[in-house]
């Protein structure tokens, strides 16, 4: 197992929103031991839209959970902005999530007892902070749900719910937004809306988005796709298109995940 580098690396450069160094995650022990992440190192640039792809069991969700501070790695190190996650107490980790990270989950993103607006401002309300009104207005106008702000989640469609979730993730201007299969439960039209919105938030609002998906179409919205197989990064594609991603994914089916890519990924 690869150990983290001895010398404490300098804080990530200004261009890096989150970074993993030799990240390893092992579940179970002995015969039932499963290596979900095997010494993964990667840097996620600020102001970019990164997709993490891979077949089931490739470790893509685990990578995202570890990067987002939801899960603890067995070894290795994670930084969000300038903060190293290892050794943070639960309360500090919680505050880091609250202030530096935005989340969009596949389903169940909203608190049913709160209105759309209350859901959007929830992280700031929990922190007892006033949201930046100008920013909030911009975010709300971008998701285009201003007339529905007073509605409860049960009165919104699935796509609208996910857009509200995206707005919540954006509202506190976090260092990075993690989206876990954000379109997994949506029809294609709603899915496209949400993906387009995430794209917009990178292009127009200058946010950083990291999205786990298994849908090549969804990945094509990203600036960069990291492919995971058997707990390792097997490929890294810039400026993906649906077809290119689809091609790359197909190779997992043919060759299995055991073979890391031996040639550079195709790309523009």
């Amino acid at each position, binding site marked *: 197992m690869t150990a983290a580098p001895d010398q404490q690396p300098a804080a990530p450069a200004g261009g890096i929103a989150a970074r993993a160094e030799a990240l390893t995650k092992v579940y179970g022990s002995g015969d039932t031991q499963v290596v979900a992440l095997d010494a993964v190192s990667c840097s996620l640039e600020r102001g970019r839209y990164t997709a993490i792809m891979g077949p089931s069991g490739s470790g893509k969700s685990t990578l995202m959970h570890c990067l987002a501070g*939801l899960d603890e790695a067995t070894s290795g190190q994670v930084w969000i902005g300038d903060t190293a996650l290892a050794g943070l107490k639960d309360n500090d980790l919680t505050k880091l999530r609250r202030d530096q990270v935005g*989340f969009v989950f596949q389903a*169940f*993103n909203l*608190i*049913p007892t709160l209105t759309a607006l209350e859901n959007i401002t929830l992280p700031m309300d929990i922190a007892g902070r006033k949201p930046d009104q100008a920013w909030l207005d911009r975010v709300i106008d971008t998701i285009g749900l201003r007339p529905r702000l007073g509605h409860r989640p049960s009165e919104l469609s699935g796509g609208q719910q996910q857009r509200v979730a995206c707005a919540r993730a954006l509202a506190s201007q976090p260092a990075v937004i993690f989206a876990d299969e954000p379109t997994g439960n949506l029809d294609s039209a709603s899915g496209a809306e949400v993906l387009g919105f995430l794209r917009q938030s990178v292009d127009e609002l200058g946010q950083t988005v990291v999205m786990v998906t298994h849908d090549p179409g969804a990945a094509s919205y990203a600036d960069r796709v990291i492919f995971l197989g058997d707990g390792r990064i097997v490929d890294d594609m810039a400026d993906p298109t649906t077809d290119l991603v689809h091609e790359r994914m197909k190779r997992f089916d043919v060759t299995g995940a055991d073979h890391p890519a031996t040639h550079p990924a195709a790309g523009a």
Partner: protein
Amino acid sequence: MLKATLRNLGAHKLRLLMSALAVVLGVAFVAGTFVFTDTLGKTFNELFTQTETDVVVTPDSAFTPNQTAGVAPSLPGEMLAQVRAVDGVKRAEGNVLVDGVTLVDDEDNVIGSPGAPHYGVSWSDDAALSPLSLVEGRAPAGDDEIAIDTQAAKQAGVEVGDSIRVVTPGPSLEPKIVGIFRYGATGNLAGASLTAFEPEVAQALLLGGDRWSAIDALAEPGVTQQTLAERVSAALGDGAKVQTGEEAQDEAAAQLTQALSFINTFLLVFAFIALFVGCFIILNTFSMLVAQRTRELALLRAIGASRRQVTRSVLGESLVVGIVGGLGGLLLGLGLAVGLRALFAALGIEIPAGSLVIAPRTIIVAMVVGIVVTVGSAYFPARRAAHIPPVAAMRDDIALPTRSLHVRAVAGTVLAALGAAALALGLAGAGPQPLALVGVGALLVFVGVAVLSPSISRPVVGLLGAPVRRLWGAVGVLAVGNAQRNRRRTASTASALMIGLALVAAIGTLGASTTASTDATIDRVIGADYIVLNPGFQPFSTEVAAAVAEVDGVGSSVGIMQTPALVKGSQVLITGLESGPASSVVSFELVDGTFESVDEGMVVDEETAKADGVAVGDTVEVTWLSGPQSYEVGGIYVGEGTFSGYVVGRSLVVAAGNPDVDFIVYVKAQEGVDPTSIRPDLEAALEPFPTVELTSQAEFKEQIRGQINQLLALVYALLGLAVVIAILGIINTLALSVIERTREIGLLRAVGMTRGQLRRMVRLESVVIAVYGAVLGIALGLAFGVTLQRALVDQGIEVLSIPWGLLAAVLVVAAFVGVFAAVWPARRAARLDVLRAVTTE
């Protein structure tokens, strides 16, 4: 299906355990009550079977007085010789047994259990006829000697050879203790103290001459009890009641059973309240379990289980919970009975160890109650479970079909209105069982409000939650939102707490009103500065009033009698006084006739006169223990609370053969003398009479207030159980809600809620639910309390007093209950692993 049921029980052990606990506590109360009263009954019954007496002769009085009140019916002494002369009588002995013979230790403490009688008896060591047996010393002989029971000796810390003060209804004595004896097998007569004199001494001292309280006879071999009783009866003629030993025992036992059944009913009422509260909790728990298992039950339906099988599966679970609850309750009930016995032992009533009576009835009732309550409460959720459509297995957005809240609102209002009507009718004394009607009415009101409660919970909880939202921001908003979310759940959890607190508020209001009314009555009626009274309301010697009268500065010292008698078929206490002295210390308002006429006959209060159909000039027959006498009504006065009923001239009462003793002495200082200045002299004058107490008017009010408060404290303590069960309910609801909201909690944690904030959120939800229950409870309790007070105006509770302090305390306690109930669920919520919570299905 059986397997599925059992697996489910296993999977939800903890949650079911909580609801089983609610059953356990209620059943334990029931079982404990039965075991305790059965045990008490057996112990007392043993007391009556200590002798081999074949025939018992007692005075043939017109009635048996409820209160001993110093009036001891007795037989003429020559009857003993008559009994002895009857053919077939082997031996016969007369005995004396009179209450009000008190042992007083050096520190002026009265020996014996508070509230238990203090008997003076004649000594007999005839083992076949007397339950007394010497442990130490010898039998008393002469004026100057007594023997006392072991318990009294222990308590007084005296030995054979010591002297001790003895206060009798007549004179006070200071005899020497020459013997210490046991009473029967248990050693003690249920907490009563026993002072034995030589028979002739007892007769002279306690019965005023050669008389007996009873005569016990033993038959010659071959003569049956029945035969002997007939012969004795024939020999004595009228004026004596002759019973076989067996009959006498049965009669005593029957009286005892009646007394015990009162204790039994009193305790069972609280057990019932506890079980009633438990029903809400079981209903809620099963509703939540069914809701959480919607998909699973739908799957069972999808793979071919019928509706009935689903219902049976849920009911099966409740049956197991009921059996576990019943058994647990039975065991805990035994513990409770042991505890009650220890309590009685502390009060001086020894119940021999190792003899708890567990009647089959107790076991059957405990199990039946446990099972019926649980299965009955689970019936509605089970019915609902059967209506889950199989398609729910495939989709996760199908909620259980719910009936509209409008139906509930209407049903609840109708039930509550019916209950209120029954309550009002009951309080107005309608029907053969008005008290039962009041109970059923209150029950219906509770159920009605509980059914109605979901319809009003959202606005009311919103209102109560407003300060929570303002004070705690996002956490407060979430907490209040959670409390408003599932209206049925919040409502039934709060209803459980509502019941206990409503009863506390109602009883509190009644108690405060009673105290205030008594204060007002005392202010109006009693013009005396001091009152002399025996704390156990036993009569005392007229020497007391005489001694007080001699104190410098005392203007008047008036003794007043209270004597039991029968009037118009019911037993009453008749006040005996002389109009002249009495009017200087108490004031009655006359509506007809004159107060002075009492010296020639009687006066009666307005209410009683109306009820008995009596007017001035009528003649009323009063049956004293000694026999009937007629008196002419000379006046009608306005009754004031306890100052009511028939009043007869004192000399007439004494002339009718009643002992000349005082029940209360009113003392008034001379005009111009400061009442407080004569107190030390009064205290000194009362030194020789340790059984009476001197109290000022203010202290007297305080004493009455203390007695009421003591009773209230007992009732509150018993209602505490209902509150404890309600707390279990809140814990259960919160714990199940936390499980149900696992993903939501995960989300909150993911977007930045700290563990502390999460705990606070659960705590605040709990407090909001508890306070909602308390607000409902206080509102209902006040309504009940005010209704009760209005209904009891005629009984002297004419002033309405609302105990605001108590109500505020109830609210504060409810908030603490909320905090306390949330401890465990909040910890559970905070411990949820964030990742697992967000990714959970």
